[in-house]
């Protein structure tokens, strides 16, 4: 017993100062992860006052009902892991609703200690709470704290440790006669073999007909019928359903208890927070203020760099990282050093062009992301994020999304990775998964060159192509949202419908900086490993291949005249369909060889040629690679003194247009448009996929999201190409029929009636 590690759970309502208290109690000894199988974040830490004690931060919850994921996670932990004590943080300015959770926690048979937060604010308002009496009535010790200032935090921790060692909490509240009568019966017939201190919780849950508890106890049908009779009797007598009876009586109990304890003086006055909110969510001003806030978030993090007359610190630092740190130091610098050491050229290529170029690309995003996350954490911490959901809810809930989905979508127009990560502020798991799945449909900054290339090469630089790209992105999100919310996969969880609008307060800088860093670091770690590996793979695929029966680096093999004979060049030229003087080492790379057969997949979309196929595949590393690869494949040589390839590749526009027209049978524009649609909507780059995996916290959901994106992109491009040819001539009857069938299925899914689910299906 002596060296058993004590475990304390920190429980409390959202917005009660729980995160602040957790940070104050554990300092830097934290481990952040996820609760198994779900996207709810799990934090643990060792107490500063006693390093032997582990504190687990439960999700912020209002109740222990079985209906929201956070509540299920929290109660599973409390019931199954049985921590030695619960430290319950209670917001004194919001006592009634906070104590509602407390009445449930005290029934679990685990010692409870209350940390009464924000007492200073209550006193400042002229109110008074008789803490001693409250403690006596609730049957558990109470420590007054100010989590923000750190007052009483140490005492609360010590009290919790003391309770964990030899405390006992017996629920003091009782329900009305009929309910207690039923509870006594239920206890007797079902749970008398469980430890005494847990019997009451189980009895209450059985009374509430809590499906998850009923299931876990595996009661016989006979017993179930027996207790059902008891429940029915109480329901009849009190004229309400069992669950509501319990909820109601808890609040009645709290109300009566507080009558003698909570003395209110300053009634009816508007607090500072109320005054702010009158302006910020004012019917007329709310939307303009919202637009300004969003504009500032965007402009500061990803807008025009301060070096170019904008205000963005993020872009400025990112440009610097990309050009100087990533480009010059890492890539070129490492190459110079490695060559100086006479390292084998293939190894130099791998390290400099493969790994360092890849890492550099990831590092480049970090400053923008840190600035962005900093602002999102600020919005979250000061209370504005909840107002965004309040303002935008009406629009987004139609698409199965949340009002808070707006931020991920906006951010994704800059970069999909932070867009996906910004979905973390959405409480409801279904909305969050939906947002993660659809966010990367927004055309991100790296997709802009693709749009530029297509618009320039085939549409004479027409601006409607770029405009249509945004339109397609938004439409894809809306269509997907409406369709997916009707599928079984997403129908499971009920949507949120009641949300607290917490009081505004000055941000706690410790929380904000910690939150920013946690997100930034998790990006560097996860996306970093993904992109390094994928960079190596793609580098390998483009650099190696088999030339005339010999396997090796294609560049080296092409130097060897005995391998690359004139007859062999003729064979390659024939295979690739190019003149002999345009045959390149890359034509023999594994990528080109693989892309050739893979291009069959894109035949029905109009661009089944190896070049667009190879570009699409390499686009998975980073979307910028698409145009860069077009540059290589359409023989733009940047080594013979010409200027570098423009971002939108305007030097190769003629060749691209010619080629697209050639392999599409004269429908180059249509094929190019289908190519653009596919590349805009299909799976994002590997780094964004890494972010999706991190946020989904489930291989199954990650595969679903990426699979869905690819299928959706394919179907959209297919419909455009097949239907387009009806008008452009060269119609394919089979293709047209298939396209019409797909379109019909899509419309059916879009317009079929839909009813919101009422039950949570997760375990």
């Amino acid at each position, binding site marked *: 017993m002596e060296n058993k590690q004590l475990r304390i759970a920190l429980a409390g309502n959202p917005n009660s100062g729980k995160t602040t208290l957790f940070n104050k109690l554990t300092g830097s000894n934290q481990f952040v992860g996820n609760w198994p199988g779900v996207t709810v974040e799990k934090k643990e830490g060792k107490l500063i006052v006693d390093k032997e004690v582990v504190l687990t931060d439960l999700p912020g919850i209002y109740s222990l009902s079985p209906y929201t994921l956070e509540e299920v996670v929290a109660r599973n932990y409390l019931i199954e892991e049985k921590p030695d004590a619960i430290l319950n943080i209670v917001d004194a300015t919001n006592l009634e609703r906070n104590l509602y959770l407390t009445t449930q926690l005290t029934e679990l048979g685990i010692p409870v200690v209350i940390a009464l937060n924000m007492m200073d604010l209550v006193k400042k308002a002229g109110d008074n709470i008789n803490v001693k009496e409250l403690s006596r009535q609730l049957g558990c010790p109470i420590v007054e704290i100010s989590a923000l200032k750190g007052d009483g935090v140490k005492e609360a921790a010590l009290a919790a440790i003391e309770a964990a060692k030899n405390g006992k909490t017996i629920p003091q509240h009782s329900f009305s006669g009929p309910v207690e009568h039923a509870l006594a019966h239920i206890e007797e017939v079902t749970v008398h073999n469980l430890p005494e201190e847990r019997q009451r919780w189980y009895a209450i849950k059985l009374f509430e007909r809590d499906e998850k508890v009923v299931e876990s106890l595996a009661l016989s049908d006979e017993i179930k019928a027996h207790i059902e009779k008891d429940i029915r009797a109480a329901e009849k007598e009190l004229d309400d359903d069992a669950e509501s009876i319990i909820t109601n009586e808890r609040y009645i109990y709290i109300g009566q208890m507080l009558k003698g304890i909570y003395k209110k003086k300053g009634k009816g006055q508007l607090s500072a927070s109320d005054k702010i909110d009158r302006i910020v969510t004012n019917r007329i001003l709310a939307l303009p203020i919202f637009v300004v806030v969003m504009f500032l978030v965007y402009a500061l993090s990803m807008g025009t760099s301060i070096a170019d007359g904008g205000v963005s610190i993020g872009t400025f630092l990112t440009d610097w990282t990309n050009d100087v740190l990533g480009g010059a130091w890492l890539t070129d610098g490492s190459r110079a050093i490695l060559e100086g050491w006479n390292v084998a050229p293939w190894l130099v290529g791998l390290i400099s062009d493969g790994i360092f170029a890849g890492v550099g690309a990831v590092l480049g995003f970090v400053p923008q992301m840190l600035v962005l996350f900093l602002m999102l954490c600020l919005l979250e911490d000061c209370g504005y994020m909840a107002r965004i959901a309040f303002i935008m*809810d009406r629009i987004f809930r139609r698409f199965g999304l949340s009002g808070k989905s707006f931020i991920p979508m906006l951010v994704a127009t800059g970069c999909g990775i932070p867009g996906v990560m910004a979905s973390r502020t959405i409480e409801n798991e279904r909305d969050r998964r939906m947002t993660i799945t659809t966010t990367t449909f927004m055309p991100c900054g790296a997709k802009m060159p693709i749009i530029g290339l297509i618009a320039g090469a085939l549409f004479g630089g027409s601006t409607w192509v770029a405009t249509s790209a945004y339109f397609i992105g938004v439409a894809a999100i809306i269509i997907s949202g409406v369709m997916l919310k009707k599928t079984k996969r997403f129908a499971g969880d009920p949507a949120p419908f009641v949300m607290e609008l917490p009081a505004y307060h000055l941000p706690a800088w410790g929380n904000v900086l910690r939150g920013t860093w946690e997100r930034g670091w998790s990006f560097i770690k996860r996306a970093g490993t993904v992109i390094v590996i994928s960079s190596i793979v793609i580098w390998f695929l483009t650099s190696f291949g088999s030339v005339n029966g010999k396997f090796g680096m294609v560049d080296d093999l092409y130097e060897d005249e005995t391998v690359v004979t004139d007859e062999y060049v003729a064979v390659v030229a024939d295979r690739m369909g190019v003149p002999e003087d345009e045959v390149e080492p890359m034509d023999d790379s594994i990528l080109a060889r693989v892309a050739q057969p893979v291009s069959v997949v894109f035949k029905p979309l109009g661009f089944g040629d190896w070049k667009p196929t190879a570009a699409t595949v390499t686009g998975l590393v980073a979307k910028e690679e698409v145009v860069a690869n077009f540059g290589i494949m359409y023989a733009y040589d940047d080594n013979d003194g010409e200027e570098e390839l423009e971002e939108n590749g305007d030097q190769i526009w003629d060749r691209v247009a010619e080629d697209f027209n050639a392999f599409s049978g004269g429908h180059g524009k249509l094929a190019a448009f289908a190519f653009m649609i596919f590349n805009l909507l299909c799976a994002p780059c590997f780094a964004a996929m890494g972010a999706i995996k991190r946020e989904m916290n489930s291989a199954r959901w990650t595969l679903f999201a990426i699979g869905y994106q690819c299928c959706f992109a394919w179907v959209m491009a297919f419909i455009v190409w097949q239907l387009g040819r009806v008008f452009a001539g060269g119609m394919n009857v089979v293709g047209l029929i298939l396209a019409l069938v797909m379109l019909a299925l899509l419309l059916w899914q879009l317009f079929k009636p839909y009813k919101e689910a009422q039950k949570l299906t997760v375990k």
Partner: protein
Amino acid sequence: MKTLREAKVGETVKVVKLHGEGAVKRRIMDMGITKGVEVFVRKLAPLGDPIEVNVRNYELSIRKADAEMIEVE
């Protein structure tokens, strides 16, 4: 029967009964909207839905579709 949906901005109403069942009803009650409690309708969102109410001394936003389940007087 009057519901919270029909209550006007600036009005204080008293909850008489909650209709419906399951997760939605439980969540509304968990948030403190129970029989007999006073609810002050603070404002309407800029796009007309949801509404913001003050209950048990804190601010709560609730969709009109759900407010319809709450009978008030």
